[in-house]
C-alpha cells in the first residue's frame, strides 16, 4: 500500500477521534476529498519541478503516532532559546506536552489548536480565520484534512507581547517513521505585536515527515516577527506551508534559517490586503551532503503603497541542492508598490546545485520592482588574503560565508535568537571563531 492509500484508509480512524458534527469537520472532509483527488505533488507540477518527494514518500510512516513518550528537559534544552523568558507551546510526536510548555490565557491566548477547535469560546475566531487563507493545494489539503493539533495564538488589539513565543515539535522516534500534520493559527489584532520562534526537531535518526500549515492574520498596524529555525536530523523532512494575510500598516517579517534536514520545502505566502503594508522575507540556507532546501515565496500585492523585501542567502556544499522560486504579483490597483527581491548563492562545491527562479507578474505601471539573483563561488583572492593574515583556510571560508549571510542576520530583532543562529552557523561550518562582525 503506498502512502497515499494508507493515508486515505486511515481517515476513517481519524474521524473516530474528532467531533464529526462540527463545521470544522466539513472543512476537513472537503480537504480530504481534495487530497484524495490530487495526491502528493509530483515533479510534473511546475511548482515541484526541482523538488522530488519520491524518496521520502516511500517510508512506511506511522500516520497517528500514539505511543506516548516523555522526554527530559535536560535532553532537549539545547533546542530552546532558553536564555530569555518565553511562552512555549511544545509537542512531542504531535501531542501536546504540558510539562515542557508554558501557555497563557492572561489577556492573550497562547494555547492549543485542539482546544480552539473544540471549545465554544474560540468559535468566533475559528469561524473567521481557520483555513481562510490556506491554499487548497495537495499538501495543505492533506494537513487540513488531519488538522487537530498545533499552536493557537490570539493577540487582542493594542497588546505588546513582551515574551517571544516558541513553538517546537519534537519527534522521539518511537516509530520507525513518523508523519506529522501540525496546524497553527496566529491571529494578531490591531496595533498588537508578537514574536514567534518555530522549530521542528527530531531526536533520533528515524525518518520524519512533517507537513505543517500555519496561518497568520496581521490586522491593521500590527507587527509580527516570525523566526523559523530548521536544523534537523538528516532523516527528517519538512514541508512548511505558511500563509500570511496583512491589513493596512502592518509589518510582518519571516526569517527562515535552514541549516539541516533531508528535504526542506518552504512555501511562504504573503497576501497584502490593505495599504502601507511591509512584508519582509529573509532566509539563510547553509547545507551540505545531499540535503535539499527549497524556498517558494509568494508576495501578492493587491492594494497600493505597499512594500515587500526579500533577501535570501544560500551556501551549498558537497552535493547539496537548493531552489529559490520567488514570485511577486503586483495587481493593477497596487500602484506605488515597492517590491524588492534578492537571492544570492554560493556554490562551495562544483557538485552542488541551485535552481533560482524569480517570477515577477506586474500589472500596475507606477511601481518599483527589482530582483537580483547571483550564483558564485567563494572569492579565492579573499581567502588567500585572510590566510596570509594567519586565519586558517577553514576559518577563512567560514568568515567569508558568515559575512555573506550577515545581511539577513542584521534584521533579527531578538539578540538571543541572533546569537543562537550565529552559533549554529559556527557549528555548521565547524569552526570556533567569534563572528561578532
Amino acid at each position, binding site marked *: 500500500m503506498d502512502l497515499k492509500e494508507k493515508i486515505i484508509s486511515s481517515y476513517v480512524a481519524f474521524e473516530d477521534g474528532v467531533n464529526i458534527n462540527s463545521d470544522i469537520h466539513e472543512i476537513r472532509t472537503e480537504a480530504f476529498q481534495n487530497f484524495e483527488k490530487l495526491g502528493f505533488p509530483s515533479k510534473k507540477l511546475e511548482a515541484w519541478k526541482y523538488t522530488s518527494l519520491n524518496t521520502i514518500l516511500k517510508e512506511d510512516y506511522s500516520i497517528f503516532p500514539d505511543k506516548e513518550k516523555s522526554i527530559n528537559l535536560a535532553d532537549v534544552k539545547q533546542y530552546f532559546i532558553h536564555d530569555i523568558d518565553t511562552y512555549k507551546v511544545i509537542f512531542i510526536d504531535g501531542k501536546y506536552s504540558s510539562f515542557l510548555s508554558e501557555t497563557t490565557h492572561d489577556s492573550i491566548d497562547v494555547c492549543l489548536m485542539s482546544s480552539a477547535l473544540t471549545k465554544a469560546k474560540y468559535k468566533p475566531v475559528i469561524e473567521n480565520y481557520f483555513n481562510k487563507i490556506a491554499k487548497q493545494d495537495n499538501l495543505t489539503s492533506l494537513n487540513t484534512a488531519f488538522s487537530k493539533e498545533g499552536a493557537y495564538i490570539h493577540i487582542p488589539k493594542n497588546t505588546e507581547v513582551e515574551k517571544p513565543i516558541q513553538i517546537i515539535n519534537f519527534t522521539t522516534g518511537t516509530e520507525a517513521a513518523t508523519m506529522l500534520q501540525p496546524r497553527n493559527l496566529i491571529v494578531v489584532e490591531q496595533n498588537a505585536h508578537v514574536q514567534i520562534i518555530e522549530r521542528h526537531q527530531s531526536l533520533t535518526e528515524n525518518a520524519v515527515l512533517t507537513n505543517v500549515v500555519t496561518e497568520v492574520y496581521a490586522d491593521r498596524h500590527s507587527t509580527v516577527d516570525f523566526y523559523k529555525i530548521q536544523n534537523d536530523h538528516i532523516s527528517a523532512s519538512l514541508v512548511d506551508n505558511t500563509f500570511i494575510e496583512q491589513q493596512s500598516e502592518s509589518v510582518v517579517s519571516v526569517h527562515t534559517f535552514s541549516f539541516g534536514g533531508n528535504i526542506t520545502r518552504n512555501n511562504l505566502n504573503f497576501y497584502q490586503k490593505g495599504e502601507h503594508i511591509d512584508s519582509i522575507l529573509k532566509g539563510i540556507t547553509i547545507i551540505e551532503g545531499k540535503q535539499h532546501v527549497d524556498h517558494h515565496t509568494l508576495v501578492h500585492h493587491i492594494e497600493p503603497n505597499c512594500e515587500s523585501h526579500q533577501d535570501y542567502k544560500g551556501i551549498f556544499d558537497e552535493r547539496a541542492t537548493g531552489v529559490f522560486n520567488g514570485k511577486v504579483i503586483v495587481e493593477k490597483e497596487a500602484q506605488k508598490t515597492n517590491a524588492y527581491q534578492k537571492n544570492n548563492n554560493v556554490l562551495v562545491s562544483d557538485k552542488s546545485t541551485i535552481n533560482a527562479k524569480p517570477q515577477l507578474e506586474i500589472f500596475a505601471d507606477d511601481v518599483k520592482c527589482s530582483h537580483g539573483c547571483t550564483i558564485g563561488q567563494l572569492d579565492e583572492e579573499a581567502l588567500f*588574503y585572510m590566510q596570509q593574515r594567519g586565519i586558517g583556510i577553514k576559518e577563512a571560508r567560514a568568515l567569508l560565508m558568515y559575512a555573506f549571510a550577515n545581511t539577513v542576520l542584521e534584521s533579527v530583532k531578538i539578540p538571543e535568537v541572533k546569537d543562537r543562529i550565529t552559533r549554529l552557523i559556527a557549528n555548521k561550518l565547524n569552526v570556533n571563531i567569534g563572528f561578532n562582525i
Partner: protein
Amino acid sequence: MLKIENLKASVDNKSILKGLNLEVNAGEVHAIMGPNGAGKSTLANIIAGKEEYEVNQGTIELNGEDISELAPEERAHIGVFLSFQYPVEIPGVSVTNFIKTAINENRKAKGLEEMPAKNMLKMIREKSELLEIDRKFLSRSLNEGFSGGEKKRNEIFQMAMLEPKLAILDETDSGLDIDALRIVANGVNKLKSKDNAVIVITHYQRLLDYIVPDFVHVLHDGKIVKTGDASLALELEARGYDWIKEEMIS
C-alpha cells in the same frame, strides 16, 4: 632570517622566477626594484605561499626552516606578512573584527589564549594612532569602498598589529599621496627593529627616501641581476633600467 636559493617558479607553466637568490638578515631593510613583469610580485606571493604559483626548484628558508611546503596561514604564524599590492575587499567583516580574528587565530596557532579584549582595544588604539587612522574607519567593512591610500594604510595597520618577523611590502607606495606616503613610511620605520626585517618592493625611489634600505636589488627576468646600497635606487631613478640590461649583455 630569509634565505632563498636558486628559486625557479612558474604560473600556468609560464616560467617567472629563473634562479633567484636572496638573503635577508634580521634588522635589515631590502628594496627590490625592477621593470614591470620582472617577477617582483610573484616573488612576494611565493614567499607568502600563494597556491597558484608553482615552485619548480630551489629553497625558501625562514630562520633555517624550509617553508616552501607550508600553507599561507602557517607561514603567517611564523612571522611572514605580505602587504598586498591590491588589498582584497571583504564586505561584511569590519576592520576591527578582522584584525581581532587574525590576532587570535595567530595566538591559537602558537597555543596561546585569546588576547583579552582590553589589551586588544588598547593595541588597536595605539596602532591606529600611529598610522593616523580614524576610529570610524575601523568599523567599516574591510577595504570596501576604501581609497587606495586607505587600503595601504590599513595594510600597515594590520602589520603593526601582527608584529611580523618578515614584512614584505608589495608596492605599498602606489596609490599614495605624499602625506599618506609619509604616514605609512613613518609607521614602517617605527615597527622596524633588530629582530625583524622588511622587504620593500617598489617601482620608484620615492618611498626609499622615507624607508631607507640597507640593500637595493634589481630584479630582471626572474633573477636578481644587481645589488647595491641605497644609492643604487637613486641611480635607477635617474638612469632607468636599460643600462643594467646593457651591463648584463656585456
